[in-house]
């Protein structure tokens, strides 16, 4: 409800008549605003046009068609008239707003000398994606992670894109931070390195997702730097991070493991009964036993379905 009202407030700020219709339903997934094309809303798996009167309609008749001036005004409103304050987010192509919702930005990219995206100008499209947090999806998998009431196994969550790794990681972070009764785990200090602001979805430093009462978040910080910073400064019992992949990440993970801190991370990969399709560095970490458990997900029963759990080192299933 809180999230929904944040989304409605935000849409109101953009002077969009659709705010009332959005307030009436909680299944809004995204709102797409494109220059000289109809504004569309995806809700409950279906796409609707927004009429001039602010209602949702399946017919494109009398729908809102914003011009570039309107989109630019919306863009300025999204970045709170402070382009400099959001320049890093703009470079990444999205801005996280209050409530953890995310606004994707499309337009003409301005490149720096080294070819990196420096800015996006001439904004041609905005995609407001409603944040969804599935609390409780980690209750099943967490039993594989808990070693005893005061300790966990370092765990790697592996799956192809779009199968709920980040959603599961977020809920596991909350459970491991708050503690749980089934099985009993007292809860530990968690250091979360949220490089892409996807897990905690911080807005002005405040996590918009529930990541637990004992969780410290380093928002927008590169994984390698963040893991080492947390290790030195926050004395975490567990470090959580998303999508480890290259050698730098692997070295930082080893460093954390050597310091006796547990890790929960995710990696892209496909798995039948072994880890053949896991990226090399992540696979090495699993084979070395730095990750003691590998949870493999698939999408067979919706996002976050556990396909199998492997033991690190031996990579045998259990």
């Amino acid at each position: 409800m809180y999230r929904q009202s944040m989304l409605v407030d935000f849409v109101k700020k953009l002077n969009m008549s659709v705010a009332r219709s959005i307030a009436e339903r909680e299944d809004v997934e995204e709102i797409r605003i494109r220059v000289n094309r109809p504004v569309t809303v995806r809700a409950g798996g279906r796409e609707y046009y927004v009429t001039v009167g602010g209602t949702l309609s399946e017919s494109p008749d009398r729908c809102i068609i914003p011009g570039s001036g309107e989109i630019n005004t919306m863009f300025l409103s999204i970045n709170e008239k402070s382009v400099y304050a959001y320049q890093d987010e703009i470079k990444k192509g999205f801005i996280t707003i209050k409530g953890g919702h995310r606004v994707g930005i499309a337009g003409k990219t301005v490149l720096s000398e080294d070819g990196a995206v420096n800015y996006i100008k001439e904004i041609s499209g905005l995609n407001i994606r409603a944040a969804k947090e599935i609390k409780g999806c980690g209750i099943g998998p967490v039993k594989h992670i808990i070693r005893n009431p005061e300790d966990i196994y370092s765990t790697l969550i592996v799956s192809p894109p779009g199968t709920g790794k980040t959603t599961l990681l977020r809920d596991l972070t909350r459970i491991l931070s708050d503690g749980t009764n089934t099985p009993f785990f007292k809860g530990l200090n968690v250091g979360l390195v949220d490089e892409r602001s996807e897990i905690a979805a911080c807005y002005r430093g405040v996590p918009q997702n529930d990541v637990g009462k004992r969780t410290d978040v380093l928002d927008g910080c590169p994984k390698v730097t963040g893991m080492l910073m947390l290790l030195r400064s926050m004395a975490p019992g567990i470090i959580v991070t998303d999508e480890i992949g290259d050698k730098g990440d692997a070295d930082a993970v080893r460093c954390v493991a050597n310091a006796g801190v547990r890790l929960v991370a995710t990696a892209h990969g496909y798995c039948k009964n072994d880890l053949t399709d896991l990226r090399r560095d992540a696979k090495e970490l699993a084979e070395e036993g730095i990750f003691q458990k590998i949870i493999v997900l698939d999408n067979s029963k919706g996002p976050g379905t556990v396909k199998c759990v492997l033991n690190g080192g031996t990579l045998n299933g259990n």
Partner: protein
Amino acid sequence: MEINTLVKLAGALLIVSGSTLFGKSVGGIYKKRVEFLRDFQGRLDVLKNEIGFMRGVLSQCLQKAAEYEGASKCIFSETIDALEAMEAEEAWNEACEKALCRLYFSGEEEDAVKSLGRFLGASDTERQIENIEIVKDKISLFLNKAEEEKKKNEPFFKNAAPLAGVGIAILLF
């Protein structure tokens, strides 16, 4: 003492006190201009730090710059109020119009203060800092000029106006 003399004395007193007040008020404008420019310069430093280092959103940065009392506080606080309803440049200009009309600034001085609004919030950190630095340099030049004018004109108006009042009173007596 005759009533006629009493009236003349009262009139003379009025002329002298009126001219003294006039001198003080004109001299005070020079003082206020210097105070304003010096205060504005200080707030630009706060704004530069907030934008460059803290990277807060514009309303937060302006809020920090408007945190303490001083001659130019109103520009920053009024911009924050107007920011909800309009673009940053428009809000800044409107606040400047209100504040500067009481200070008899020259067109150039007004332009220098207003020029901050032109890019306020609308570019990356580097450009914001550059813009603030440019405005600060301009203000620094105007501050030197205003200080010289104050040194020259403030005592003149403060001293000469009462004397002129006394002169007029003697002539009329």
